[in-house]
């Protein structure tokens, strides 16, 4: 039962990242504009990230779903989520009214607090998955 809950959480979080990546990979030009709206990176970096990040998100999402390269995927999406949260807070403090474009058109009209609620929920879920993985490893180590 315990494992099935973690598995469901894997599927949900992995699915979110696959969806978020796919929606951005379909329109990299729009995603480049969304990154540029944060006004933290020069355009030539934003545009390259716009082609790269969606695929990284999708691969990490698939890693969580299929539990293949699982820890790497978990670490990367955790770091990405922290970066998204930091960038959103930084933009807010600089008075930038931005759309993150994290989930395509669905997230375009989200306000700052809605963005934060989604990002923090994902981060908490990732932290829970990481804790579960650490406990599983500890249990395995104690058996061997």
């Amino acid at each position, binding site marked *: 039962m315990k494992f099935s809950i973690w598995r469901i959480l894997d599927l949900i979080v992995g699915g979110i990242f696959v969806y978020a990546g796919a929606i951005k990979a379909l329109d*990299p030009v729009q995603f480049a504009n969304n990154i540029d709206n944060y006004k933290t990176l020069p355009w030539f970096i934003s545009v390259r990230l716009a*082609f*790269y990040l969606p695929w990284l998100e999708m*691969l990490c999402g698939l890693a969580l779903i299929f539990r293949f390269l699982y820890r790497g995927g978990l670490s990367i999406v955790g770091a990405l989520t922290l970066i998204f949260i930091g960038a959103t807070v930084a933009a807010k403090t600089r008075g930038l009214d931005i759309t993150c474009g994290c989930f395509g058109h669905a997230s375009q009209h989200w306000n700052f607090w809605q963005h934060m609620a989604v990002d923090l929920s994902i981060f908490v879920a990732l932290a829970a998955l990481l804790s579960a993985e650490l406990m599983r490893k500890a249990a395995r180590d104690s058996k061997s």
Partner: protein
Amino acid sequence: MKLVAVREGLILIALACLPAVGEGFYFRDKISWRSPIPASELVTVDQAKAWADSALWVDARPDDEFAHDHVPGAFSLNEDRWSEQLAQFLPNWSPDKKVVVYCSAESCNAARDVAKRLRDEAQLKDVFVLNGGWEEWVKKNR
């Protein structure tokens, strides 16, 4: 655990490069790699002024900034009141007109976004973004 995570993370980072490069190659002619606005969609104040009556000026700044001052004859069209202002603007457009969109300065994105929507949603051709925006206009018209 840490080493495994780093090794697996590096594999994922490397794997993601492959489709990203492929997609970048596919989009190589459809995106501006050096500037958010392709040079062909930018217009200088002098060029736009030379278009005289064939130019339709669109102010993408917020309403209060437009009310304070704007390019003579410009239409206010910002994303806050898009539908309402677009309906007021479109009757003034004709196929022989060039649309020049501006926002506060070179660093703002509103002009780029409004220009994109005019092309994509209103299907207008010859839509340009004013290089340097309102700041540049003021500088050249002091």
